[in-house]
């Protein structure tokens, strides 16, 4: 162990760690992504545009982004609630409850999709109760959102939880003694602190939802123009050995996702600045 007193204020190992980061990013992210780009260079610009703006492709983007955004938003609310319960209250079985949050990470997504479909289809436990009310979940966009909610919930809980843990209850008590109502305390004391991690959680769940394939194909019904997600369309193009077309759709998906994530990140930075 080196003693840290000899250091002159700067962390050591910058060159090494930065070098490793770039190496890692290159091998795992950059090189595969450039291969993706390379694969679509067989297309002319016009052909690329034709594929990317085909009505069926556009419809699938719409389905993918809307359901992922809806799932991310619902997860943000529910995840905040879950994190709140886990941090602020003591109850028996809390450890088990806490561990269960991560289960969606471990479960193969196809299994999640199959079991969600089994429960929410018209003859499933819950689906059969909702069917008489005219509410269909499996094989509709609601079903897709449900699957994505399941996949995304750990992201929100796990990003909000540590921040909430560091939040002193005393600050809330101080607000209360100064005469703030509970709602006001939550709105102007707790929420501003939690907004950045909530946004991160949302972004993670959202991004995960856009690319999710395994669980969705079982519950979505895969009807073109209605419940067909973009990743399925990519698979369908691969199935026809249309590599260039598949990469064109994927590239467009990636571009839109990247822009959206950039926006979310910059929004987050702004919130963080104003919160300080």
């Amino acid at each position, binding site marked *: 162990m080196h003693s840290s007193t000899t250091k002159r204020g700067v962390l050591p190992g910058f060159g090494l760690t*930065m070098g490793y980061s*770039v190496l890692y990013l290159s091998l795992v992210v950059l*090189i595969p992504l450039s291969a993706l780009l390379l694969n679509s260079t067989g297309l002319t610009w016009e052909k690329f545009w034709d594929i990317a703006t085909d*009505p069926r492709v556009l419809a699938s983007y719409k389905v993918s982004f809307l359901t992922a955004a809806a799932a991310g938003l619902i997860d943000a609310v529910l995840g905040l609630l879950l994190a709140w319960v886990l941090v602020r209250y003591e109850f028996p079985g809390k450890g088990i409850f806490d561990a269960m949050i991560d289960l969606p990470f471990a479960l193969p997504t196809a299994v999640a999709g199959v079991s969600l479909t089994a429960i929410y289809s*018209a003859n499933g436990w819950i689906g059969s109760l909702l069917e008489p009310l005219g509410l269909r979940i499996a094989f509709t966009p609601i079903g897709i959102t449900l699957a994505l909610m399941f996949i995304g919930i750990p992201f929100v809980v796990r990003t909000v939880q540590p921040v909430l843990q560091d939040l002193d209850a005393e600050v809330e008590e101080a607000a209360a003694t100064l005469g703030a109502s509970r709602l006001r305390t939550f709105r102007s004391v707790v929420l501003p602190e939690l907004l950045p991690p909530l946004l991160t959680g949302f972004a993670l769940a959202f991004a995960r939802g856009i690319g999710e394939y395994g669980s969705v*194909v079982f519950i979505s019904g895969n009807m073109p123009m209605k419940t067909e997600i973009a990743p399925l369309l990519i698979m369908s193009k*691969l*199935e026809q*050995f249309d590599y260039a077309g598949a990469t064109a759709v994927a590239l467009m998906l990636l571009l839109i996702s990247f822009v959206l994530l950039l926006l979310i990140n910059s929004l987050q930075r702004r919130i963080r600045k104003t919160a300080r």
Partner: protein
Amino acid sequence: MSRRLKRGVLNGLAIALVVVMAACSAGEGGSGTAGAKADASGGSDKPKEVQLLNVSYDPTRELYEKYNEAFAAYWKQESGQQVTIKQSHGGSGKQSRSVIDGLKADVVTLALGYDIDAIQESGLIDEGWQQRFELNSSPYTSTIVFLVRKGNPKGLEDWDDLIKEGVEVITPNPQTSGGARWNYLAAWGYALHNNNNDEEKAKEFVQELFRHVPVLDSGARGSTTTFVERGLGDVLLAWENEAWLSVKELGPDKFDIVYPSESILAEPPVAIVDKNVDKNGTREVAEAYLKYLYTEEGQTIAAENYYRPTLASVQEKFADQFPEIKLFTIDEFGGWGEAQTKHFKDDGIFSQIYVPQ
């Protein structure tokens, strides 16, 4: 700071480049030695043991388990060689892509010729593979039938009945499932024959049929689950062998099989992957493996697994199991290449069902 940053980034990129190049050259070296080994073994004496990889599609799992045992015994007797056959199963198109991308298959036994054509285009299989074995290289065949709920409550007897008001049809998406392309073409062929070969009428029929499909699964097994487990739909369009398997495994008290007046002759073909067998030195045994499918024993195993045999003597023995119906072939559609372009490509007839023109 910025100089160190630059140095760090450069170092990282340099290492990445070295790693990638090393991986590439290692790959070349690896295949080189494998080739050398095969040359040595392909020489004077036959090696005692030999391994085959058969890359197949989903519903042939049980068939080839049985067949591999039988062939291993036969080959041992014939040549004294111990042959171990490995199996790989999955969606037909996916399996085809795996072989193109480097899965070292010695033989492929897939759901449709189009998937083998794709391997041929990549150069791994020589041209004219479909003429290499008898009967278009299709040792066993199948057809598309209707699986309906017990007692056939909606009275579905033929293709026309499927587009009646209130009937729901379950079939996978022909763009993602090779098997489902047979379903689609069977319906198309029927409509064509019953409308004096009027293409417009056939198109209308098929489009109407797909309007009766509430869920388009991505694969055949997914559709079977939707129909059997979820209880969705009145009829499942299925391969005959899959239908029989469902009835046998899920109980004959739940489902009935209905044979329409005519259907398509599904010919799942087999082929040797030339580049791979030459490299592995397995051409001889691979050829014997596929030829043995045409023998009495091979045909019996196929029939026992609900594939239609092509050998007359075995056909007779299993006549009860396979009712005779009018069958037409893919040739009627000008072969797979043409059918693919016309029907299943992105601007093909199937897409037009869903995308308003």
